[in-house]
């Protein structure tokens, strides 16, 4: 090992430790009883128990939170991609009246603070009878996910030479057939990356999803805060619920790990 690479290894070890120790502490707490958490200070659980997880996985008011979150996240991802794909194609292939202004205006929606939209969303979705439904949260998250998906997909699509489109049209492909059969497979990794980002930002958002739901579509993140404040301080269950919210993200990362670096650059490297 050269000196430079040993230095890198030390830097990365320290950084990863910094990232993982707080997560370890949460996992550690989730395996302890409340008496052990508050009574003794231990670096690892002396009497490991899965009781906290059992509480969550056997109580519908807990585990339905995960189901609700997953439902609206998947709906949002599908919706965002469905509208963003044709739009990104238009932006990457054609010039049209007002295209640059439109693109910039879309991006400004990514800069809109959710706090600004919380109250108007609540009123709008109550007025149209969508309050406390999964689709309301999925639509609300489109505010920031659609611009992002258009941005990412446009980057990946611009990397595909336009001769491919022209050749396909000469060969007699219609636009929808060309788009689904030839073009989409070409930018498959871009679609995967855009889906990853939609999933990520919809999964981690709380302010809007909490404001727009009360019972039927309540996300897990909101379930956590309320149950904890109602039943005193049940640290063990709180920690277990937190650990369970990390798992879906970890799974998704594992699937896109080979594209993650390019994806984080939004297809623009």
């Amino acid at each position, binding site marked *: 090992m050269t000196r430079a690479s040993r230095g890198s290894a030390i830097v990365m070890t320290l950084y990863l430790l910094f990232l993982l120790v707080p997560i370890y502490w949460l996992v550690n707490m989730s395996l302890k009883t409340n008496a052990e958490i508050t009574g003794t200070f231990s670096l690892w659980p002396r009497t490991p128990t899965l009781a906290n997880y059992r509480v969550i996985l056997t109580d519908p008011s807990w585990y339905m939170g995960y189901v609700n979150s997953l439902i609206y996240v998947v709906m949002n991802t599908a919706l965002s991609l469905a509208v963003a794909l044709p739009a990104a194609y238009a932006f990457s292939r054609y010039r049209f009246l007002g295209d640059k202004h439109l693109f910039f205006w879309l991006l400004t929606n990514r800069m809109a603070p959710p706090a600004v939209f919380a109250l108007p969303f609540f009123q709008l979705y109550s007025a149209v009878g969508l309050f406390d439904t999964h689709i309301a949260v999925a*639509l609300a998250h489109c505010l920031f996910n659609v611009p992002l998906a258009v941005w990412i997909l446009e980057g990946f699509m611009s990397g595909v030479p336009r001769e491919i489109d022209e050749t396909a049209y000469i060969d007699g492909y219609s636009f929808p057939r060309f788009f689904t059969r030839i073009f989409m497979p070409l930018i498959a990794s871009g679609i995967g990356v855009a889906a990853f980002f939609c999933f990520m930002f919809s999964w981690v958002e709380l302010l809007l999803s909490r404001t727009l739901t009360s019972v039927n579509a309540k996300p897990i993140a909101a379930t956590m805060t309320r149950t904890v404040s109602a039943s005193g301080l049940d640290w063990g269950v709180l920690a277990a619920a937190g650990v369970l919210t990390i798992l879906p993200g970890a799974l998704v990362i594992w699937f896109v790990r080979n594209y993650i670096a390019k994806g984080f650059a939004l297809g623009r490297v």
Partner: protein
Amino acid sequence: MDKPVNNRAWLLVLPVLVLVAFSAVIPLMTVVNYSVQDTFGNNQFFWNGLGWFQEVLESDRIHAALGRQLLFSAIILAIEIPLGIFIALNMPKRGFWASLVLVLMALPLLIPWNVVGTIWQVFGRVDIGLLGHTLAAMGIDYNYVNDPLDAWATIIVMDVWHWTSLVALLCYAGLQSIPDAYYQAARIDQASRWGVFRYIELPKMAGVLLIAVLLRFMDSFMIYTEPFVVTGGGPGNATTFLSIDLVKMAIGQFDLGPAAAFSLIYFLVILLISWVFYTVMTAQRETP
């Protein structure tokens, strides 16, 4: 290179327009509507002109929140951008370790924001948290609930923990696109490590750095959930950032008029600062 002009492309953009009109334009119009009206209850509204805007622009409370917010975003950018570049330079380039490091680094990014808050709230507690306990054992008087400075430090460390990986992953993607030939040429010229960084790596990262700076600025300027969970805006108002103040005003006190005027000004400030970053950073790129 020139793209053909085709106004029928509008048809492809139409679904996005309809969707964004529903989820952005209508709510935004509601906000505009509230910002120029006053009410005595009973849904009776009357025209109030620019009164609310004036009130917000002159409010000491909002000036203080804006000041805290600007300071917070400045500190976040000053720490996370250089640290992210530094980490990216040290990441393994290929192989199993590279994949593993990538996955582990992305982990904090996919944790729901209130869970991030919870993790640090627990981690920093003196009685049951590793960080708080360790600091106390070292004889440091650390208490993020009562001490404003400790509260700030906790929130900044939490944000660095949460988001530095995003900057590092973006820069890493930029570094990966540099052909080996560039480094070989630098070796032949006997360029110093600093020279390689300054004239090869940094210019190649300029594009992704722009994205990183914009994303980190926007998101740190909009931060709500994490400090709300950790400190609730306290002690006092020490960590009440703009979004926390806005939600307090709009949903807590239901002051619709001032909250709406506040929202619009808030949004404009973000747009303005993002535009400045964009203009300055792209101007630098064009004049090497």
